[in-house]
């Protein structure tokens, strides 16, 4: 039921009824089509969910609704008056069919009631946190989180009368010890950058329930293909859509998914902060998501094979990959990731950062670039990119050792990738 006074409009002015008689309930969405494909598997959802086929022209595929505004009507004025503007098309920052279409596909993949797409991952993260936190609130997070998020928590929360503490993401006791009287949110990344530490999501959720907190998980490194945090009881899941969700290194975007109740709280923050996703970017994202499951299978399979290859190479000192038995949390990975693991690998090469730089120069396929999750393999060194703000000693303290390399394994043929690493390592030693 969308309308607040459906069927009782005439009784409204006499005040015959009170709040308990109001009709509007929270529904999933807002979506264009209600094509959720619930009960279907990942590839089917990726291809079909949320797609809007134009009924006038019968054109297949969601059109790009490249407009800033929509013609108004009595229904829309009524929606604005009642405070249910999120369900109508009024202005593209508020909502646009291209956004709704991709939001439905994302909701289907995340098993969420509702989602919002943003112009970047950081727009999604900052709007989500500002919407959920009240003045005086405290967040418990981890020093291992993405630098942009760390900077927002560490540098900006204070301005809003909020605060943050950092605990070890793998030490549930240290997380519990960091919880204060004013803690409202536990914010963690499902798989950390660059050391690929897993957080035990079910344990974090239990902690949240024990202290009446909200749990927000950044699932960018895993994606809903490898792990569905909402199914494990998390309140909200955020992603940088720039990475695996889009997967083609050709747009910047972010997502948040969860219950309609919580996403409706984030929506007004989106309106205030800006950061809505442009319709053309929505088209690219929705189109890219059609191959999401297919791509993730290739990323995961390539990463597992390449991690195995690197682990057995005499010049590679250590490989961080949750699918390897040598990973400290391999057992947790087996249950939480159900054998899908990740498309990301980190490893340490003999000879420190000098050899790491040399390796990147000699690779012919993996491109030396920041970001991740594209169809092409991307390689970078954490010490001078994601963790560049830390001193060498601080880096070593959190495990960023000399020669550490982060690799986003693409969907190239695995034989080619292995051959490329083989020749590059041979050339530098």
């Amino acid at each position, binding site marked *: 039921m969308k309308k*607040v006074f459906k069927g009782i409009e005439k009784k*409204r*002015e*006499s*005040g015959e*009824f*009170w*709040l*308990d008689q*109001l*009709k*509007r*309930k*929270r529904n999933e969405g807002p979506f264009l089509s209600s094509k959720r494909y619930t009960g279907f598997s990942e590839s089917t959802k990726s291809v079909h969910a949320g797609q809007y086929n134009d009924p006038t022209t019968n054109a297949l595929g969601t059109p790009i609704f490249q407009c800033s505004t929509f013609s108004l009507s009595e229904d829309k004025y009524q929606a*604005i*008056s*009642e*405070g*249910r503007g999120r369900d109508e098309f009024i202005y593209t920052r508020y909502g646009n069919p291209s956004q709704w279409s991709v939001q439905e596909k994302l909701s289907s993949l995340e098993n969420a009631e509702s989602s919002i797409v943003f112009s970047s991952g950081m727009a999604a993260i900052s709007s989500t946190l500002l919407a959920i*936190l*009240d*003045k*005086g*609130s*405290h967040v418990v997070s981890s020093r291992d989180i993405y630098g942009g998020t760390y900077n927002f928590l560490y540098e900006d929360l204070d301005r809003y*009368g909020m605060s943050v503490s950092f605990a070890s993401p793998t030490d549930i006791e240290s997380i519990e010890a960091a919880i204060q*009287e*004013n*803690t*409202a949110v536990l914010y963690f990344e499902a798989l950390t950058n660059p050391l690929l530490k897993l957080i035990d999501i079910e344990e974090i959720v239990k902690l949240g*329930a024990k*202290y*009446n*907190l*909200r749990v927000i998980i950044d699932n960018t490194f895993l994606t809903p293909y490898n792990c569905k945090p909402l199914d494990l009881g998390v309140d909200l899941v955020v992603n940088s859509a720039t990475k695996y969700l889009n997967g083609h290194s050709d747009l910047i975007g972010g997502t948040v998914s969860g219950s309609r*109740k919580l996403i*409706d709280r984030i929506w007004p923050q989106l309106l205030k902060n800006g950061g809505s996703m442009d319709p053309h970017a929505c088209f690219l994202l929705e189109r890219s998501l059609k191959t999401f499951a297919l791509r993730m299978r290739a990323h995961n399979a390539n990463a597992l094979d390449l991690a195995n290859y690197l682990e057995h190479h005499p010049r590679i000192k250590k490989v961080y990959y949750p699918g390897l038995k040598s990973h400290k949390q391999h057992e947790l990975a087996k249950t939480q990731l159900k054998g899908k693991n990740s498309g990301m690998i980190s490893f340490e090469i003999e000879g420190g950062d000098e050899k790491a730089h040399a390796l990147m120069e000699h690779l012919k396929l993996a491109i030396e670039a920041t970001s991740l999750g594209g169809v092409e393999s991307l390689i970078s060194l954490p010490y001078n990119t994601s963790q560049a703000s830390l001193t060498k000693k601080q880096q070593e303290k959190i495990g960023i050792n000399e020669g550490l390399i982060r690799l986003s394994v693409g969907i190239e043929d695995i034989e080619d990738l292995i051959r490329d690493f083989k020749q590059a390592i041979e050339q530098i030693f």
Partner: protein
Amino acid sequence: MLNNINIAGLSEYANEVKENNIEGKASYGVVLDWISGTKTKVKTKNMILGNHKLVRDFEFTIDEPAQLLGVNCAPNPAEYMLGGLAGCMAVTFMAGATLMNIEIDQLQLEIDGELDLRGFLGIDKDIDSGFPELNFIFNVKGSGTQEQYNTLMERVMKHSPNFNTIKNEVKMIGELND
């Protein structure tokens, strides 16, 4: 939004509570510290709404006028109580007005009462130390009719939590820690 009240959100919340009563449970609390003389400071405790904590990071000072031995630096306890009563009645009135499609241009609520301080001072044991009665006046300008405003006043008296806390008997359970 009419009166800047999100009636859709209120409808969703009412229906949520109907299906899941726990979401209607809201715990409130304050903690008061004596500062000096008649001056005290109140901090709001965190609320629990449903199963989730709401951080309430607010504080205010209370004092008495100089004539009643304070330094008159803040409203007195009775004024805070009446202010809390009026605020709650106003919220209920505005929710009801929006529900009835009445646009409110101005709402002013006056509450007056008289204490007989002989009760506080213990001069006459037959005199209650509380307010024997409170008089309230709604000054309203808006698109509603007299009849609609009368209905709204009835709604306020029936549904305002603070109004009913003061009107009805509340079980007071005291404890001492020293």
